[in-house]
C-alpha cells in the first residue's frame, strides 16, 4: 500500500532560507542545502523549494542551490517559484530536481504544462494552485477561485475547473494551497482539498494551515490528500517529522516509517 507523503517546504531567496530554521541545540540554519539534509535525515519523504526570486542573478544562485541539494539528499525534491518557460524548467531539472512546479505562469500560459510534460514527462510537472474561497457564482460554481501573484490578484478562474484542465494538459501532480488557511496554523482547508482530490486522477498535495499533527491526519483522511506540505510546525521545531509520522501511525495512517 502506498504511503502518504510528508513534505517540508523551504522558502529560498538569493540562495538563503527566508527564515532560519531551528534545529538541534536551537541553532539557526540559513543554508537551504543544510536544511534539506536535516529534513532528509529526519525522514521527510520529499522536499519542496519555493524560490522567491527577484532577479535573474538570484535565479542562477538557485540553480547552484539545486545542484548542491541533488548531491546531498537522495529523495525527490521539487522547485517552484518564478518558473516561466521550458528553459527555466530544463535548468532546474538538469541541476537535479525531480519536479518543477508552475503556478502563475501556467494561469497566464497554460501551454507551459503541455510543453513541460512533453519535454520531461508528466511526472515532472506539478501545478501549484493558490485558491481563495468566494461566493458560488455561475463563473465560479465551486466557490473556490484561483488567485495569482501571492494571492493578490483574482483571476476569475474556477479552481475545480482549473485542476481538471491542468490534468488534461498533462500535469502529473497538484500542489493545492489555500490562501485562506495559509499561515493560520489552524488546519488545512479540508473541503477544498477533498473537492479537488476526488475530481482529478493525479495526486494532490495539500498546503496551507498545518499547525498540529491532527491537521495532517484530517487532510490525509477527510481531505483525501495524497501528501501534506508542512512548514512552520517543523521549521521552529515545535514538531519533528518523525514525531508527526508516529502520530499518524498511531491513527492508522500509513507513512514511510523506516529511513
Amino acid at each position, binding site marked *: 500500500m*502506498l504511503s502518504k507523503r510528508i513534505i517540508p517546504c523551504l522558502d529560498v531567496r538569493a540562495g538563503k532560507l527566508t527564515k532560519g530554521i531551528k534545529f538541534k541545540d536551537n541553532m539557526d540554519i540559513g543554508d537551504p542545502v543544510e536544511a534539506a539534509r536535516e529534513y532528509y535525515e529526519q525522514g521527510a519523504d520529499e522536499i519542496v523549494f519555493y524560490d522567491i526570486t527577484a532577479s535573474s542573478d538570484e535565479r542562477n544562485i538557485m540553480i547552484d542551490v539545486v545542484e548542491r541539494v541533488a548531491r546531498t539528499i537522495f529523495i525527490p525534491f521539487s522547485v517552484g517559484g518564478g518558473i516561466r518557460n521550458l528553459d527555466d524548467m530544463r535548468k532546474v531539472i538538469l541541476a537535479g530536481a525531480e519536479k518543477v512546479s508552475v503556478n502563475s505562469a501556467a494561469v497566464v500560459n497554460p501551454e507551459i504544462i503541455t510543453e513541460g510534460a512533453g519535454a520531461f514527462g508528466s511526472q515532472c510537472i506539478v501545478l501549484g494552485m493558490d485558491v481563495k474561497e468566494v461566493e458560488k457564482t455561475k463563473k465560479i460554481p465551486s466557490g473556490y477561485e484561483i488567485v495569482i501573484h501571492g494571492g493578490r490578484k483574482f483571476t476569475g478562474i474556477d479552481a475545480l475547473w482549473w485542476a481538471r484542465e491542468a490534468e488534461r494538459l498533462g500535469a502529473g501532480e497538484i500542489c493545492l494551497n489555500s490562501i485562506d488557511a495559509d499561515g493560520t496554523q489552524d488546519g488545512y482547508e479540508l473541503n477544498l482539498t477533498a473537492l479537488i482530490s476526488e475530481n482529478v486522477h493525479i495526486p494532490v498535495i495539500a498546503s496551507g494551515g498545518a499547525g498540529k499533527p491532527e491537521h495532517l491526519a484530517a487532510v490525509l483522511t477527510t481531505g483525501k490528500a495524497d501528501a501534506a506540505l508542512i512548514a512552520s510546525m517543523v521549521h521552529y521545531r515545535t514538531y519533528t517529522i518523525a514525531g508527526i509520522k508516529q502520530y499518524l501511525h498511531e491513527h492508522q495512517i500509513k507513512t514511510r516509517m523506516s529511513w
Partner: protein
Amino acid sequence: MIAIIDYKAGNLTSVARALENIGEEYLITDESCLLKKATHVIFPGVGAAGEAMNYLREKKLAAWIREWVNEGKPLMGICLGTQIILEYSEENDTSCIGLVAGRTKRFSDKMTESGIPLKIPHMGWNSVAFRRSHPVFENINPEAEFYFVHSYYPAPANDAAVLGITGYGINFCSVLAVENLVAMQFHPEKSGRPGLQILRNFCAWRPLC
C-alpha cells in the same frame, strides 16, 4: 567502472549523483565501444517505451545489452529500463528488448483500495515483499520503502523471475531477477539510504564468481 546507459530517456543526473555519493566511478554513454570498459551496467530511464526503443535500436544498444547479459555480466534495470527488458510493452504498443519473457502492462484506471479509487501514476513510497534473498538486496531493512513513479508495471511470464512484489490495487512484480540481471520498478537513486545500499550492493556484485 559503472556505465550508465544514456538513451535520451529522461534525466540521468540523479543516478550519477547517487553513485558519486557511494564513491563509485561511472561514465554516462550511448556508445557501445565505451560501454565495454565497464564492469557493471545500469540501465535507467524515465520516459516512454516507444521512443526509448527507437533510440536503442538506432544506436544498436538493444543488441549490445542482450550480448552483455548473455556474457553473464551484471546489469541493473531501473523503472523504464526494467520495463523494456521484457518482450513487449503496452506503452506505445512497443516491441522491447526481450531479455526476460513477459510484458509490461498499464495499471487499470478502475483500481481501488479499501473502496477508494487509486490514482495513476503510482507515485510515492511503497514497500517491497522479497520472495528470497539476493546479493543486491542484502542489508535492507524489511520495513524499508522505495520511491515509485510509474503508470506501467512489469509482468514477467515466468514466476521464477519475480523477486519482489508491491501492492497497489493489485500485487505487481516490483523487482525481477534472473541470474546476472536485476531490475526494479522503483528508483533506488531516490529511495534514501536503502536505495543507496542497493546501488552499493550492485556495484559489489560479482555474479560470474
